[in-house]
């Protein structure tokens, strides 16, 4: 049904950087009740504000896993300022594209990155621990916006 690129499948089969960074500087979680996926991102930053390590955990489909995996690869070596510029389209592009209906899985990546950076800057309030039960995930609007941007 979905036409996944080889790149998506490659990341799905061999996801990079699965797990959690110890004592993370950045931490974010998002979950979309609408499609039941959840994503957690942690990263570590060195003295030059460069991301040295990024890890993820994902409860989601192949796109969600591949998008998270690709994101962690993109993050490594970037300054936080540069990392902030990454959009869901960049993530999708690095995978050779995603099926239209699955673009929101990459939106999750953008969202979790925003949250992790906010945490890093000292706004951990953005991160509620009880995700899934509290729907603060990607909204319909955001998905539609992402779809439009990608058309």
């Amino acid at each position, binding site marked *: *049904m979905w036409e996944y690129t080889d790149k998506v*499948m490659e990341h*799905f*089969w061999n*996801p990079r950087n*699965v797990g*959690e960074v110890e004592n993370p500087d950045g931490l974010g*979680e998002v979950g979309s*009740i*609408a*499609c*039941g*996926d*959840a*994503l*957690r991102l942690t990263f570590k930053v060195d003295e030059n504000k460069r991301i040295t390590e990024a890890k993820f*955990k*994902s*409860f*989601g*489909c*192949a796109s*969600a*896993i591949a998008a998270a995996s690709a994101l962690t690869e993109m993050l490594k070596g970037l300054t936080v300022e540069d990392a902030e510029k990454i959009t869901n389209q960049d993530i999708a592009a690095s995978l050779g594209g995603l099926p239209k*209906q699955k673009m929101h899985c990459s939106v999750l990546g953008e969202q979790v990155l925003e949250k992790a950076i906010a945490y890093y800057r000292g706004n951990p309030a953005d991160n509620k621990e009880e995700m*899934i039960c509290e729907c603060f995930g990607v909204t319909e609007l955001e998905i539609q916006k992402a779809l439009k941007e990608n058309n």
Partner: protein
Amino acid sequence: MDRIYLDNAATTQPAPEVIEAMLSCLRKTYGNPSSLHSVGLEARGLIESARRKMAAFINASPDEVIFTGSGTESNNTVIKGIALSLQDKGNHIISTAIEHHAVHAPLSFLEEQGFKVTYLPNDDEGLVDPDDLKKAISEKTILVSVMHANNEIGTIEPIRELGAICRERGIYFHTDAVQTFGHLPIDVQEMNIDLLSASAHKLYGPKGIGLLYARKGVKIKPLLHGGDQEKRRRASTENTPGIAGFAKAVELAATEMEREALRQTRLRDRLISALLELVPESRLNGHPKLRLPNNINMSFAYVEGEAMLLNLDMQGISVSTGSACTSASLEPSHVLAALGLTQELSHGSLRFSLSRSTTEEEIEQVISTLTPIIAQLRAMSPLYRKQAVK
């Protein structure tokens, strides 16, 4: 290694005998059954002999059997056809929450046109309660449609009782038997069925050919208007090769159905008990006993259906899932929701559906392949971690 195909509720591989029957028809019985010359008469003969076979199989008379293009078409014909022909009598239809889209979608269409539909609830194993039907019936009820067995969770509904209630009240009773036709015995007389839908590709027959049983005297308007085929109940040049294949599939079912039901039930129960034992926080969806012999539907907490499905596929095993991530609409299964499953558990569901060719070895292979896949995906899941520290 040969592929292990366990998605037979989605569709089956046509039996070799079925392919043979189709091939012979494609080569030799190519006439238009409406043509008067001998090439046409031969085709006509093939269809009428197939019709008699179908009728005998469900204890109907040949006149009551209409060939259609799919199970979906049969359902649409019944629902819209009865609505149209009985709209003067009433505008109320009763169905259930767990019907296939091929029943729900035409019902929604009718609701847009002003019809009222009551969706009966079910218990947490998927069973509909005949008492609920009794309560739901009103003066305006013109049709009751309850599926024989559910395609996702395999639960078998109490059709005979439901049918008896309708018969007593003089209301037409339809059952979507797409999942049971050729797998479980069906007797339309004994089970009080007025209308029944079936689809050949679920019983090792070809895709693109369906059946509609309509008891003599049931008033129904056709969905396809045109020529005089099927006694004006369904226009279109008849799909003779499809009908030939369907008839052969029914012939096979008649001889092996009973034996296969027992055999597959054994394999089914082995897979269920092994997974329940080996995978913590797993559960069976649907009824443990009143269940299609070939259906296993289970949820594995903290993992996502599509991820399991693709991992299994990589290792040569085909299954399906009720996960939203795998449906075009990205909506989670309405059937699992109707069982009261949380979204999360519904996302972690897999359906294995067996066939006449499924072996014991294959079942063991599935058990030993799936268990580590789930462990590995759980290690990756943010939900699992939380649960673990709790």
